């Protein structure tokens, strides 16, 4: 069975450690949380996801940003952005 996913970036939340602050009641992931546990803003998540695409596949920064925008547009937290 598929896990629930982060409302912000879509990452599967398979274990408690995947959730922000290790708290399963939070519906966003550790990568979309600030150090104080609150959820990052759209711009913060966008920058982080674009950087991940560039680091993992070497995408051009502009392509990475546009791809990250398209990914976030499918997530419940950012559908209206």
């Amino acid at each position, binding site marked *: 069975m598929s896990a629930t996913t982060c409302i912000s970036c879509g990452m599967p939340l398979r274990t408690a450690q995947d959730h922000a602050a290790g708290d399963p009641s939070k519906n966003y992931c550790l990568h979309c949380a600030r150090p104080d546990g609150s959820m990052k803003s759209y711009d913060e998540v966008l920058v982080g996801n674009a950087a991940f695409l560039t680091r993992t596949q070497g995408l051009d920064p502009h392509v990475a940003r546009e791809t990250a925008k*398209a990914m976030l547009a499918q997530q419940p937290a950012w559908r209206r952005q």
Partner: protein
Amino acid sequence: MATHRKSQREQQKSRSRHRLIARATALCERRGFAGLATAEVARRARLSHGAVFVHFPTRDALVAEVAGAFAREVTDRLHALLRDAAPLRDVLYAHLRAIASREDLYRHALMDARAMPKTFRSSWIGIQSAVSGYIARAAEREIARGTIRPVAPHLLFNTWVGLVHHYLMNRNLFVRGGSVLEAHGRMLVDHMMRLLATKEARP
């Protein structure tokens, strides 16, 4: 009573949606994403053509749903195959096994991705980055131990996936039928590990 009827309607709607996604996935697996026809999906799901658009406003939305579900399936399978701190060799094998379980669908997605809508392409790129993340974490541990040479995460992944995708796209050159990854996966993993091994770690 009214609540019960509403609940039944919702269940029926959910079943129809799942049936449409299942039939669309089966069609994409056989003929690819680019040629998916909503009329045929409806016919195979035994629903009216209009019913497709009750669930998906456009054909592209249906294709994006199939691609998104497929992306989750591949990464869930990869995750399920791996234990914590798995060695790089195991991660590469798990990647091939995750693809091989849906090789035809993956191959069509690979061939069609560039011509597909943005939502499809972003799901496709998302799968690749998720896989690259698993590979990079395993590689970092082995680089630290000195068993493989230092390589940037994106170059490591692009080298590996370039090899895998070449075999998938040209499958008919390497096998006469069946799965090219089942037939040649071990060779590809062995080759990659030999390329990466430090002089000290070579057998």
